[in-house]
């Protein structure tokens, strides 16, 4: 039996029960107390995140469920992010596909119709292993998302050796539901029937524990769930059909039935007859039934009189639907099999794992600095796959399904989707492992700011976010310090922008095979409402205006990943981010720009790629860049608060910026022509870089 419980935790269980639990009971405790389900090492700090605010309809309850915000006319937007890192390392196709399935069920379990998916993927590089991972991860996401008819509208793709052994596969989903029709995930009254839909099989046995320890390198394929997108589609359609007839619903995720039943009972009790569970294979033991993580299952709490009607919707599709037990007032979780008690544990014990605060220690950062010329740095950065055109990936997604994707993948830094009430939302996911590696606190702030800017770049103002915190082993003091620092940063920025964090997840134990933690990779997914007009950016001839101050900040950037840090850490400047974002939204509404991009990965140089790749040349007068004279910083600094704007009315930006108290400078122009950067009139031909930018992934991965 592979348990992740510590000896102290086991002692606590024994003393509370005053007996030795049987094997099945140990497995139930192990699942519920797993880091994956219990947040025992993170909860103390997660409480500092702002989870409420204007418009929040439903915020996170113990970080288990999706959050919801008001988007007008009685509609709520439901938002959730989750990773499937460990399964994807072992079986990238099924790992990624089931990640999509899981996040979709999180959304439908609130009664919401999923309308868009995002995927944020990080692998080691474009070597043989990275290619194998990436091809299968994209194919897995495509297979599931396309099959269920939910468009993947955006995401991120990053290549960094830190993820060689432990790729990160994050998927986020947004859904819509009338606020009055949101279905809770917990029950409040005893007597309700527990109805399970879907078959239970032998896949994903012990997946929650699997996710709560480092990858062993042994054969762990049995812990990976297998995706069945067709079943997933039936589950979505039928669940949304019956949502008005159920009192509570929960999807079966980590910890299977054990966790779903216990959390749904929420302090009340439950009695489950395991022999009633519809099985995919014969001869499963009661313990296996309890902790199996087979996908495409849902648990409903239903009034007796509604059971038939609920099950009829599933039977229409020949989908199994059975009453497996009921909610009772005595606060015990009891699983029986053919009359014999298999598990009998107090609800409170299962729901109250001991919380941990581990020792912390801030790591000493040293960076090797490599000498590099401006020309060489420019080529290397523009050729980096992190900045490359992602069409190879997103063209595998059915991003048009739903006829609501207004700004599509590859068109801008955020996707824009139309809501049923006619309004539009923008969504984007952002992480920054370079900055987090040097300063997790600044990074926490910066990723919130970046997401806020990305939404502004299409005309939307952030209204809610979810976070996903991905780190190494929390018992390592340097890892834990970064974790705590990043939450502090996220919390501070979220409060500053008044963007509540309505949900989230934590993923620890992301390490390479030598036990080194990945670079800290907290991730933010933010949704915003379009204020007036939205922007479909298009590159045309015009003036380039740079909003914000370019600081000598090359540490924690793509540049420093390649050539080592120089100058200061690339900090977030929240006020500058806010003011510049507001100016961009105003400019979009007054039709003062045709294209803009916030400055982030690869600095000013990185943001020029989409312009150069559209048949244009860029002329930049470096003396007009405000804030630094250092040639490397001018091109590659990733200091926050900046946007690059393409306009035929630069004066408007100068006037508006000075009114707001931020800086704007006309730093050059864009003309039709071959891809060249004229830096103070010196031509740097970039056709090779642009050609590679456009085709790199296609060439490497086809």
């Amino acid at each position, binding site marked *: 039996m592979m348990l992740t419980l510590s000896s102290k935790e086991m002692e606590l269980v024994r003393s509370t029960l005053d007996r030795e639990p049987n094997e099945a009971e140990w497995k139930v405790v192990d699942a519920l107390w797993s880091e994956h389900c219990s947040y025992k090492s993170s909860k103390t700090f997660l409480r500092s995140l702002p989870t409420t605010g204007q418009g929040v309809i439903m915020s996170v309850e113990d970080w288990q469920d999706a959050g919801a915000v008001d988007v007008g006319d009685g509609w709520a937007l439901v938002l959730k992010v989750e990773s499937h890192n460990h399964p994807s390392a072992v079986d990238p196709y099924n790992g990624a596909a089931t990640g999509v399935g899981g996040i979709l069920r999180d959304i439908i379990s609130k009664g919401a119709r999923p309308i868009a998916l995002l995927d944020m993927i990080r692998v080691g590089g474009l070597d043989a292993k990275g290619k194998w991972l990436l091809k299968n991860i994209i194919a897995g996401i495509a297979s599931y998302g396309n099959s*269920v*008819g939910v468009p993947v509208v955006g995401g991120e793709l990053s290549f960094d050796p830190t993820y060689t052994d432990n790729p990160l596969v994050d998927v986020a989903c947004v859904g819509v539901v009338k606020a009055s029709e949101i279905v809770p995930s917990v029950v409040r009254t005893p007597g309700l029937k527990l109805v399970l839909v879907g078959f239970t099989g032998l896949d994903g046995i012990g997946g929650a524990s699997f996710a709560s320890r480092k990858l062993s390198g042994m054969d762990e394929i049995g812990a990976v769930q297998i995706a069945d997108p*067709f079943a997933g589609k039936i589950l979505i359609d039928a669940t949304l059909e019956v949502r008005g007839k159920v009192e509570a619903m929960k999807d079966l995720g980590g910890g299977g039935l054990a966790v779903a039943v216990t959390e749904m009972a929420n302090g009340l009790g439950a009695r489950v007859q395991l022999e009633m569970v519809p099985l995919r294979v014969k001869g499963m033991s009661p313990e296996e039934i309890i902790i199996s993580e087979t996908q495409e299952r849902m648990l409903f709490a239903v009034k007796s009189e509604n059971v038939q009607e609920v099950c009829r919707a599933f039977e229409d599709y020949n989908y199994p639907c059975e009453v497996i037990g009921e909610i009772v007032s005595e606060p015990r979780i009891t699983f029986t099999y053919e009359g014999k008690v298999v598990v009998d544990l107090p609800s409170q014990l299962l729901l109250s794992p001991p919380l941990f605060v581990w020792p912390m220690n801030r790591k000493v950062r040293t960076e090797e600095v490599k000498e590099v010329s401006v020309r060489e740095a420019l080529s290397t950065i523009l050729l980096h796959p992190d900045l490359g055109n992602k069409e190879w990936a997103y*063209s595998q997604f059915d991003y048009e*399904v739903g006829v609501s994707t207004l700004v599509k993948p590859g068109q801008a830094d955020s996707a824009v989707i139309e809501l049923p009430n006619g309004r539009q939302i923008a969504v984007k996911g952002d992480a920054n492992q370079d900055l987090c590696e040097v300063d997790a606190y600044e990074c926490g702030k910066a990723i919130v700011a970046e997401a806020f800017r990305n939404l502004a770049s299409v005309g939307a103002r952030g209204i809610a976010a979810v976070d996903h915190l991905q780190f190494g082993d929390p018992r390592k003091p340097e890892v834990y310090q970064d974790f705590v620092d990043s939450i502090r940063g996220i919390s501070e920025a979220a409060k500053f922008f008044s963007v509540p964090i309505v949900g989230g997840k934590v993923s620890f134990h992301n390490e390479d095979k030598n036990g080194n933690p990945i670079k800290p990779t907290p991730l933010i997914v933010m949704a915003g409402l379009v204020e007036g007009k939205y922007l479909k950016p298009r590159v045309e001839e015009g003036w380039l205006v740079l909003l914000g101050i370019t600081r000598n900040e090359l540490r924690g950037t793509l540049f420093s990943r390649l050539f080592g840090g120089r100058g200061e850490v690339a900090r977030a400047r929240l006020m500058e981010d806010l003011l510049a974002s507001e100016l961009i939204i105003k400019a979009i509404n007054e039709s003062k720009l045709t294209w803009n991009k916030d400055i982030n990965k690869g600095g000013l140089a990185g943001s020029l790629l989409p312009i150069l790749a559209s048949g244009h040349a860029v002329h930049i007068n470096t003396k007009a860049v405000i804030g630094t004279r250092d040639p490397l910083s001018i091109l590659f600094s990733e200091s926050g608060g900046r946007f690059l704007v393409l306009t035929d009315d630069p004066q408007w930006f100068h006037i508006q910026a000075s009114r707001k108290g931020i800086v704007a400078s006309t730093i050059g122009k864009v003309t039709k022509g071959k891809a060249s950067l004229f830096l103070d009139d010196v031509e740097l031909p970039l056709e090779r870089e642009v050609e590679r930018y456009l085709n790199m992934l296609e060439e490497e991965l086809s």
Partner: protein
Amino acid sequence: MRTAVLKFPGTTCEEDVVKALRLVKAEAEVVKFNSFDPDRYQGVVIPGGFSFGDYLRAGTIAANSEAMKGVREMADQGKLVLGICNGFQILVESGILKGALLPNLKLRFITKWTYVRVSRKDTPFTRGIKDVLLMPIAHAEGRYYLEDEEEARELAVFQYSNPSGLVVEEVNPNGSVQNVAGIANQAGNVIGLMPHPERASFSKLTPDGSTDGLEILRVFGK
């Protein structure tokens, strides 16, 4: 026209098609595969998606369903039948339309906006229509195949082309014979195509503000 939009388990585009059909004032409704009565409708659309998960082969399980017997009846009576994407796959799998749809040459799913030339205007769907339409494809198995290439060219209603309507190999997204994007039966009342007209029906969703998909769907509004 009273138009059924057929929903099989795994169909994903039924609501999108209904939304577009309402723009041309068709009397359209989603009909589940197990409650389809062909006598109640003058037209039927089989929308895109992954019917029965596309298990075995795209469209093949749906092609053998009771509902498709009803579609065949309608086709034989000269009523209008339109299969989009998976719907096209179902029509060829059921033998109502000729040929087969094979995996794309790149062996992967491809979403892309494509131009198609309208090569036949003798069908109720294409009478008096523009010469070149802009619509998106989104499929993994869309490579049209028919052994007799000459026949394929005769049946072809839509062929992938450049923006000015020239049918050239460079713009063939999936390796179809003769760049075939869609075909009709001899009579012209049954059409199947891989591009999605319903996704090219709302100007805010198209790259150039066009609504070429409506040109094809308009016949259901009559």
